[in-house]
């Protein structure tokens, strides 16, 4: 519970954070809410020599809407997302998901940028961002780069982010008919399995859909079989059928004390159905 010695610098701007990152090299780590990084440091699973605190940077804060596109700064906390009227109204899936992350302390400190950059296999927001086809904005020494969420998450704790880059924010199209459903791992409250579904609805019929799962596998990823099955399906009645094969299609499935591979596959179908039903209910 006691980390190794480290240096702490509070960055005054994103530009300063970037140059500190470059100076620090592999020893340096960004610190946002600290709710993934500091537990790992206390267990000495991570031993960074330099922490660059970006948690308070105004440049990385704020939730805005412009012409139907919503942008969230990387340092916005889960609690702020949960409380945002804008999100509750125009992308309720995001606010609701954030409201069910961990506990109040975690939500008050943890940030969306940290959650996406860390990419815990059980983190909630990655699946939501993949389902919303969000774009993740990155800033590095060579300028800005944009990556689609589904390409950003690559493997367990592995994302398309260079050591000297910062996640500055995410943006996605407003979407009301989207929902997230998760089976909580009872100790941590992370997702044992969580599924996010974003639907385009034409009356009771689904014209197209994006569905993504977290928790079940190494990283958040699309459930393309389910998406295909949803095209033209009438909802909510057709949700179960469309979701039924969701788990079987996964290449790799996590397994631990809290759920075997078989259970997680089955729960992927259950929570895909629940997410689709809830999303359709919003349509």
């Amino acid at each position: 519970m006691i980390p190794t010695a480290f240096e702490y610098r509070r960055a005054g701007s994103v530009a300063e954070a970037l140059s500190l990152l470059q100076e620090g090299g592999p020893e340096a780590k960004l610190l946002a809410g600290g709710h993934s990084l500091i537990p790992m440091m206390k267990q000495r699973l991570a031993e960074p020599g330099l922490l660059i605190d970006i948690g308070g940077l105004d440049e990385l804060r704020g939730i805005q809407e412009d012409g139907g596109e919503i942008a969230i700064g990387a340092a916005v906390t889960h609690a702020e997302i949960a409380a945002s009227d804008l999100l509750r109204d125009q992308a309720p899936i995001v606010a609701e998901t954030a409201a069910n992350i961990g506990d109040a302390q975690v939500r008050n400190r943890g940030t969306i940028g940290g959650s996406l950059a860390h990419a815990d296999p059980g983190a909630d927001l990655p699946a939501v961002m993949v389902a919303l086809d969000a774009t993740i904005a990155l800033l590095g020494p060579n300028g800005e780069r944009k990556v689609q969420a589904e390409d950003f998450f690559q493997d367990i704790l592995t994302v398309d982010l260079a050591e000297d880059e910062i996640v500055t924010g995410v943006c996605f199209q407003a979407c009301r008919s989207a929902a997230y459903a998760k089976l909580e791992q009872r100790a941590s409250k992370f997702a044992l399995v969580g599924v996010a579904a974003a639907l385009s609805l034409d009356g009771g019929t689904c014209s197209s859909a994006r569905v993504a799962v977290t928790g079940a596998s190494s990283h958040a990823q699309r459930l393309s079989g389910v998406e295909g099955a949803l095209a033209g399906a009438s909802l909510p009645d057709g949700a179960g059928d469309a979701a039924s094969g969701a788990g079987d299609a996964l290449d790799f499935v996590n397994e631990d004390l809290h759920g075997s591979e078989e259970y997680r596959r089955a729960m992927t179908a259950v929570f895909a159905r629940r997410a689709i039903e809830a999303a359709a209910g919003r349509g």
Partner: protein
Amino acid sequence: MTIADGPALPKLIGERVKRREDPRLIQGQATYVDDIKLPGMLHLAFKRSDIAHGVITRIDTSAAAAMDGVELVITGTELADHLGPMPIGTPFPAPDHFSVATDKVRYVGEPVAVVVAEDRYIARDAADAIEVEYDELPAVVDPEAAMEADSATLHEGFERNIAVESYWGGTGVNPETAQPEDDSAVDAAFAEADVVVSQRMLNQRLAPNAMEPRGVVAQYEPGREYLTVWSATQNPHILRTLVAAMMGLGEHQVRAVAPEVGGGFGCKINIYGEEYVAAALSRLVKAPVKWIEDRTEAFLTTTHGRDLLGYIDLAAKSDGTITGLKARIIADIGAYEVLLTAMIPTLTGLMMNGVYRLPVVRHELTEVFTNKTPTDAYRGAGRPEGLYFLERAVDMVARELDMDPAEIRRKNFVPADEFPFATQSGLVYDSGNYEPCLDKALEVADWQGLLAERDAARAEGRIVGVGLSFYVEVCGLGPSAVVPTGGWEHSGVTVERGGKVTATTGASPHGQGNETTFAQMLADHFSIPLEDITILHGDTGVVKQGIGTFGSRSQAVGGAALISAAGKAGDKMKQFAAAMMTDQEVSPEDLVFEDGRIQVEGAPEVSKTFAEVADYAYVPVPLPPGMEPGVSEEAFFEPENNTYPFGCHISMVEVDRDTGETKLLKLIAVDDCGNVINPLIVDGQVHGGLAQGIGQAMFEEVVYDEDGQPVTASFMDYVMPRAADLPVFELDRTVTPTPINPLGAKGVGEAGTIGSTPCVVNAAVDALAPFGVTHIEMPLRPERMWRIINEGEGGQS
């Protein structure tokens, strides 16, 4: 002479007085061990084994010792020159157990070396810099496999890893030999039974998880040859005795202090290696030293609870009359015997008579060493395990006979007119009246309505079940014949100048609320305001003698000692008062305490204020003949027996068909702990107990992998019950006083944990009974439940 002018003081015993200790605790104004900072204090860190079983072949401390700020690095072998093997508190044979391993490590987390450094951070870095090499040995993880001839063994001299074996049976125990004279009655009962249920059940290993981890500060003052130890302990007096013995000091040279203690649940009864090490190293480095356990260490090294495997057979007649019990119990006690390790599982068999007239019993107990953290008391300590086995088995018989779970229990109850009741295991239940308690629980729960609700839910396709359990437990430990440290308690009551009262108790609380309940008793006794009373505890320098708080003994034993000391102090106050009123020919026998005065009964005009009398006691001019000045009295109370509270719990659960998640919809607890001093505190104790009992049923489990590596060593994997997991508890009580102490109070600290666990599992089995299941192992993991629903296979899961 003035007439009493103060307000009439309400009687406080039986009132819901708010806990006086809470404001300081919730405002961060309390002093815990970690808040103690002494000049020149150094810090300890332990290098711990990261393997389950192995021989230490090399320890290199040179890099650690060379670090800036490191005072000393010492290995187990070196420390053995200063500290011998640790004492235990049971009469069972035990292998040597050193505070820090000397030759072999036997569980992940066992200390192998210690660092003393300027601060905690340096200490930890230095501990990481110690290099240890091992010859790894096969890990012994499964207690049944541990007893096979081909298993690796942990300790020399303990063949097949067996620590303790005991056996008794027949129609009663022969206390001389601990053997049955004739065991054939058991076989006969089973041969003649109409129904026999047989079930293997695991009462799984749990981590106590007190909110405050352990911690110790030790200061040896060479000039005075005096040692002070502050520790997060449940029993500072036992700590003093054992630390003194380990250090080669007399008890007069040691002061042990338990400052505020943030929960214990049994795991802070044991005196741990870290406490002895801190004392020894303080003497060695001539400076105060501190060690504060971190949460990882708490999971790895603070004693675990439970971990009993039971093979249970229960025989009955077709009308539901229970005719015999066979219990073969295997206790996985972990790597060593610590203070009470070997005794805890013996309580399981002792209490397996439950509330029933059980004509014959056969009980076999084997305690087995494995490469896991040692076990010791955990809230309930042996009784939850026994009552779980019994109450599951009784439920299975009821199901087999299609009987109502309440009615099968009613049929077998020990009748009210048979108390005191001698059980097959040799205990004598002090008092009991089970039927009214059952009836009240059925009424509060609306049992018939609950069954109808369940059936209606089932008709809708929901998976719902109801469960009931009826427990009896043993509290108020007590008497000295059965508690190795002595089973009494001590109290002191001093009336100060000015009429305020200071009392001490050896029952050292760590969340129980004694400062409130004990003050309520004294307020009523002396008829003075609650605010005029201070209860001191947890410091052997202040509390002359004591045993401690465990086994729900504070009120029944500590409270009885307090009231006895108060009686002596009161008598003396009356003598002084009478001496002040000689002109009115008042004799002490005529006097009573009333609203801050000492008065002639029924004649308030003939009186002195309590404060006046107190002042006179300290300046007694003239000193009444034959009296000493002052009022400071003390008393020991030795109970002649334990107390046996009981209760009935009822629950309703719903299982999610898709996911297997279990939701507890209702929990009704009707407990009988005898007379109640403070219903608010009793309810609080029941609430906490229920949460932990439900935690065992539904969520908690310490898991090791096949290499003896702990899988659940953090809150990310060890599931604790949360408030949101629990329904609003519906509590009620019946009151059957005990004749064992003058208060009639029995003890309630552990009741909630004992009744709720089988109650919730019984409800879960009821819920899944339509899928053919007759038993479900704890905890009720979602996947486990989901498999039963989907595979629909009966019997096991």
